[in-house]
């Protein structure tokens, strides 16, 4: 009997040795650890990300008459409406800047962030049919969304620049400055924050659908909590600290300052905003990696 178990044990050891000598390319295991994102795999699927970007961009305006012109009309009309409602009717001051340009700057930057957030927030629910059938790094979808939005942002950004040049030529009191070169960094921050919040929501909506309803008007509320339709200088000094907890406040402020001058950039605020962004982004990635493996069972 003892001999028998000995034999069994040695056989087991042999098996283990054999196993080590074998080269497995993929090992599927239950969900382990709290961080499980395979970046090199994501890189291997870069062609897929590119195709997702193409699909999202092309399919968005198929069978529309105006096509990509919509990219321009959206911020244009929003800025016009804001000018009329908040500028003319409510008479909210804009730090002496041309009202239209003031709102346009806020809307252009905010749109990018809001689009990243809302569109990534239903990653799991909207892609159930694909995710349920085939494996690819799930993160490819939200990343593609962020890139797609970058394209539409670029188009809208060009429009904004055109208006800025026009107003400058007309002799408006705008002062573009060195901070213009910080725009790429601001874009990265907005993308990271939008993606972070978006994938947190998408991870949680696999179980709690309520959040899906919250996203739409939550983003709306967030916009009003950010100095888009009003300058931060209009907020009483003793309440300005509240904006420290809104990472978007510093981003929008800096974006506007870079092109228009006025309303200063406060470095500590910007640093805190960046730190918050990194935190949110990190939490998002961790949550996402936890959910992506088994969400098919709960969705």
């Amino acid at each position, binding site marked *: 009997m003892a001999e028998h178990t000995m034999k069994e044990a040695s056989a087991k050891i042999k098996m283990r040795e054999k196993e080590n000598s074998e080269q497995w390319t993929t090992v599927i295991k239950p969900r382990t650890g709290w961080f499980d994102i395979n970046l090199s795999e994501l890189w291997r699927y870069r062609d897929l990300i590119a*195709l997702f970007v193409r699909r999202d961009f092309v399919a968005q305006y198929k069978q529309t008459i105006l096509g990509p012109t919509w990219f321009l009309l959206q911020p244009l009309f929003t800025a016009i409406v804001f000018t009329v409602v908040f500028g003319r009717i409510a008479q909210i001051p804009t730090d002496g800047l041309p009202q239209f340009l003031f709102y346009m700057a806020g809307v252009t930057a905010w749109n990018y962030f809001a689009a990243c957030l809302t569109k990534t927030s239903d990653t799991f629910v909207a892609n159930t049919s694909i995710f349920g059938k085939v494996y690819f790094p799930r993160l490819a979808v939200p990343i593609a969304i962020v890139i797609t939005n970058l394209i539409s942002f670029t188009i809208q950004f060009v429009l904004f620049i055109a208006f800025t040049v026009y107003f400058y030529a007309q002799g408006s009191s705008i002062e573009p400055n060195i901070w213009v070169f910080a725009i790429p960094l601001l874009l990265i921050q907005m993308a990271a924050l939008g993606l972070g919040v978006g994938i947190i929501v998408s991870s949680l909506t696999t179980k709690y659908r309520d959040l899906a309803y919250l996203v739409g008007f939550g983003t709306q509320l967030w916009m009003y909590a950010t100095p888009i339709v009003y300058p931060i200088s209009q907020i009483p000094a003793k309440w300005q600290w509240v904006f420290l907890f809104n990472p978007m406040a510093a981003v929008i402020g800096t974006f506007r300052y870079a092109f228009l001058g006025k309303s200063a950039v406060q470095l500590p605020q910007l640093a805190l905003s960046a730190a918050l962004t990194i935190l949110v982004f990190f939490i998002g990635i961790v949550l996402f990696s936890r959910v992506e493996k088994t969400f098919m069972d709960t969705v």
Partner: protein
Amino acid sequence: MSDNVIRVENLYKEYRLGVLGHGTLARDLQSWWARVRGKEDPNTKIGHDYRSDGKKFLALENVSFEVKQGEVLGIIGRNGAGKSTLLKILSRVTAPTKGTVKIKGRIASLLEVGTGFHPELTGRENIYLNGAILGMTKKEIDKKFDEIVDFAEIEKFIDTPVKRYSSGMYVRLAFAVAAHLEPEILLVDEVLAVGDASFQKKCLGKMGEVAKGGRTVLFVSHNMPMVEKLCPRGILLEEGSLVCNSDIQHVLNRYKFADEDEVCRTPATLNLPNLGLEIRQVYLNKEYTNIKPYMPLAVELEIYAKNELHGLAFNLTISRDNCDSFIFSTSTMPHNNFEVVIKPGLNRIVCHIKELNLCSGTYYLGLGVSFPRVETIFFEREFLKFKIEDSMIRDSVLPSIPAYGLVYLDHTWWMSYGQ
């Protein structure tokens, strides 16, 4: 040196049953709080040794097997035996609860063809998109592009959005992309049920080619003759456990033996929570007890829906053990242009076959639910098993339809002489 390409070790998959509703968040917080304090989770039952204890359900229970390089393995088992769960874990759609799977080489699944097809994009764009989703790089697709278009026979329509494709073209294109994937391991789940007979043959040929090329194929199907033809070896799953792992003849015998005492499986039910749809009953001749040749057969689906649904199509098939293809197949769309409008509450859909001219024997009723050209939501070749009993043909004095034919075709004989 071992040449195993897949090793499945003590695989478990557990599903939570019941509805996840408003109570979930509170319960989750409770469990989480208990864990934080190092106490026992009040929401897990201890010592549940049943397969299902009302809250949890083991779809796979301690499954272990190995697959060698170049092997074509058939995976068979009845509805809910865990076949699809196994493929889902192998294709990494979901993670196992316990146990490991080790894989050598790239794995690709044909769980459902046409995954990720976007109706607005052209055939060309969809080939690239679909290929990339399935794991190909752009370069690989470039190389295979002409072959794929050739195989799908859609040269003329390559730059047309796929929403204008016929369902046949759609399926052909989707299969063509998947078939040219060239993964080391291919998972196939019942996809060959789609398309016309000649295309099926082509697909079978492709699968054989894939297998001959030294690649490994895992084939899940209810179509026993096809499994027998394609797979030298098979595994049989029963209620989540692997009960037989042997050469295909042995496995098939075991399957048939287990199947024998089970006759007409009414009521069969199907729950499609994604659509808020539940097929509660499928009746075969609600009023009559027996199904007889040359008598009418009424298939009635009793469907309970949560909300209104348009554009859904239901597909019925009849097949038999000893026959590869379907004996009969019908769909509410597109052949019959019968538009299904599902209303909240109870819906009844009836397919009335005036004269069931099939010979006596055991048959399977297949049920499919799909959005035509968009997505097949469900298809099960052997959804319901039924027997057609021996009987007299119509009111004639003739004995039963001979059992060595498949169908009875209405015909007459006559003779003539001389000029």
